[in-house]
């Protein structure tokens, strides 16, 4: 297989505003193709959401970028450095939050933070302590006695406290309660103001919508969409079920409505248009219950691309 070789640090030297660059990345595990000819470029100073349903290849991509696994073919660069060959130089400028909890159960939260700070170097201690407060973490207990969310906080603080140029986060909000999730978003906002780049994976659309500047959507190891969030608004479909007191008003004419099921008193539909328009139409009749939910990514894909 031929891969166009444009690399070498010199040639990307004038392109220092590129944080991550993947060129035809392919990764196979035996017969399973986890990533299939993936190419993209990410500018510095942005928050990138890396979306995809379970098994899409998100974690695989992150591990390739970290040099933990080797691509079957293709290559990747972080700040112009080859992720396989210049691991040490790259790792001193990035931090990583793994998808699974992988901390040492017998150590306390604070001991963990100290260890990771010393290994990485460049801890901003004041910021670290501030983070511990903001996340409301009791750092003096053993990691194994923490709940899932508290464990997650430790890795998040560890990733933030060294203020690295690039943060690679694998489902960073899993386990966090809504309040903490908000706190985390603030931290990312601060990071962005500092000029740091964030690359985070998720399978929750709304989360990415709330935090990210750009989105990359992966499915079965292939990039299916990418770009600025505004351009991808058609993804923000809502699933709505309404039960009326009596009679369903006519909504089929409204732009963005796809009716899935309806009876005399109830209707179930997908909606991706202007909410004011919709609300005006449905409030003509009395409503008994109203249920709106965001479809899962997988559902979205099915509706958009078929299975």
């Amino acid at each position, binding site marked *: 297989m031929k891969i166009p070789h444009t690399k070498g640090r010199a040639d990307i030297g004038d392109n220092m505003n590129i944080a991550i660059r993947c060129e035809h990345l392919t990764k196979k595990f035996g017969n399973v193709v986890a990533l299939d000819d993936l190419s993209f470029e990410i500018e510095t100073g942005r928050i990138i959401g890396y979306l995809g349903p379970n098994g899409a290849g998100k974690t695989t991509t992150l591990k390739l970028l970290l040099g*933990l696994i*080797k691509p079957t073919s293709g290559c990747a660069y972080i700040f112009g450095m080859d992720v396989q060959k210049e*691991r*040490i130089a790259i*790792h001193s400028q990035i931090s990583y939050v*793994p998808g699974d909890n992988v*901390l040492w159960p017998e*150590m306390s939260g604070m001991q963990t933070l100290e260890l990771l700070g*010393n290994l990485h170097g460049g801890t901003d201690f004041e910021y670290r302590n501030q983070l511990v407060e903001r996340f409301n973490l009791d750092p003096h207990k*053993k990691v194994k006695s923490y709940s899932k969310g508290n464990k997650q906080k430790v890795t998040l603080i560890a990733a933030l406290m060294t203020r690295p140029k690039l943060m690679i986060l694998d489902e960073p909000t899993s386990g966090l309660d809504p309040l903490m999730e908000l706190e985390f978003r603030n931290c990312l906002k601060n990071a962005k103001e500092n000029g740091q780049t964030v690359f985070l994976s998720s399978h929750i659309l709304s989360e990415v919508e709330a935090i990210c500047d750009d989105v990359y959507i992966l499915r079965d190891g292939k990039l299916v969409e990418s770009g600025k969030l505004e351009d991808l608004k058609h993804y923000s479909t809502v699933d709505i079920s309404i039960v009326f007191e009596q009679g369903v008003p006519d909504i089929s004419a409204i732009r963005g409505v796809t009716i899935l099921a309806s009876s005399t008193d109830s209707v179930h539909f997908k909606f991706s248009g202007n909410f004011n328009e919709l609300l005006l139409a449905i409030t003509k009749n009395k409503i008994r219950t109203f249920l709106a939910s965001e479809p899962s990514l997988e559902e979205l894909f099915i509706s958009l691309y078929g299975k």
Partner: protein
Amino acid sequence: MTATPTLEVMSPKAYKMTAEPFKRSLKKWAKSSFLWGLVFGFTIIASASSYLSFYPTKTSRELLSKAFGQNLATNAIFGPAYNLDKLAGFIVLKSFFTLIIVGAIWAILSSSKLFRGEEESGLWEHFLSGTTTLRRTYFQVLAGSLVGMAVLWLTVTLVLVAGSYSRHLGLSVSQNCFYAISIISTPVIFISIASLASQIFNSRKAVNVSLGWSFGIFYALRLVGDSGIGLHWLDLISPIGWVELLHPMIEPKPIYLFPIFIFSFLCLTASAVIVGKRDLGQALFDNSLPSKVSKRFLGSDAGFSLYLAKTTLYSWLVSIVLTGAVLGLVSSSAGATLEQSSIKTVFERIGASGNGTQSFLGISFEIVAALFSFMNLGQITSIREYEVAGHLDISLTMPESRLRWITNRIRVTIVAELLAGVACALFTWGFGYLHGGGPSLTTAIFATLNALPPSIFVIGAATLAFGLSPSKTAFVGYFVIGWSMMVEIFAGLGKTSRYFFDTSLYHQMSPYPATKINLVSAITMSAIGLIGTFVGVHFFRQRDIISN
């Protein structure tokens, strides 16, 4: 088509019926039980054959019996020898003690992993996310372990029955059955203790340490009990003593199965009570307060690698030092008996000549070599466990190279081994000296040095596997050690091809001080070990890091 398969899988009933913990536990035990069963069985048959060929006449058997049977030192270490004028007695002398030790170590390592390690690593959380309860999970793991023991019993019995039939050893089926029962007694005891310790402590490490100490104490009790100073009753309070008192083959005393049964039953009942009351991940002594960790352990990866290994290494250090001390203590009296006994010819077959003390030390330091091998292997397999647990994903995304990371681990292993070696030599010499005999300091040092190359070979083999096929790390390591031990036991036979013996690390190691140190072998083993390590590290630097 009315029901889709997905629906079936999702139904709560299907969850309730899940036998995943049982299947997993059974799979783990059955495989190793079968393999160990074969090893145990063939070892016994081999020792029987060697008896028939070395002591063909009645006179030679009586001589052996006289010489060996009254030696208090060997009684204390290996257990009393009975009826050496009969085949059955010799078999027990040659194999029973080794099988007790191997059975105990195997049971300790496997059951601490199944009863606590897998809970700690989060596997049980998956089981519990169905409708299975903690208690049910525990019982399933236990049931799997006990069925595994049945597999061990059956395998040993079958090999023994077939072996004694084909070699005309004249051992009855009931003798063989009871010997197999005696052999599984030790693992059953330690599985029971492990299940209890796993309810008391909430880390596998703590469970392992407590099991190690139990083993040490039980062994020491029976050691004193058998040392002929009138404290025979100590045998009666040591579970290992009970196993010894079963007297399989010779004059079976099934009555001692009773305390073994009661003891195991009590441990298991206590476990069941605690497991019904505690939560996942908890234990009776739940210390959620972290212990203080010195700054230097957290300051760098080198410090941290020491922090992770130190508890295990302390335990090994203690066992190796104690072994050295015991060897020093008994070497002169054991040697004196050996000198005038015909068992010396057995030792001579494995290449040990020289005076009695030297022969004794030559053979005994093979035990020390095996301990060193196990200690090193434990370090390399813990590197693999670190990867499986996902810790390596964190360590290797820090600005430090893979080479540096693994070098830190291997360096801890080698430094610890050297320290243990020095301590062992000092204690062997010191205790021998206190007892008014034993080897000189130089002899003790060289004997220890001579015991190191096999364990360096083991580092090489395990590291090579870790680099090339990480999931096989433990298997390769234990295979190399297990194979070497087995072949060395066969070596007493004296009839098989010497190329076969040469495949054993402990046969390659010369029984110094009984003979001169075989420098060529020592250097070859060390060199292969080093090359294996380098190649393994080389491949580790290139390969994918795969966590669970």
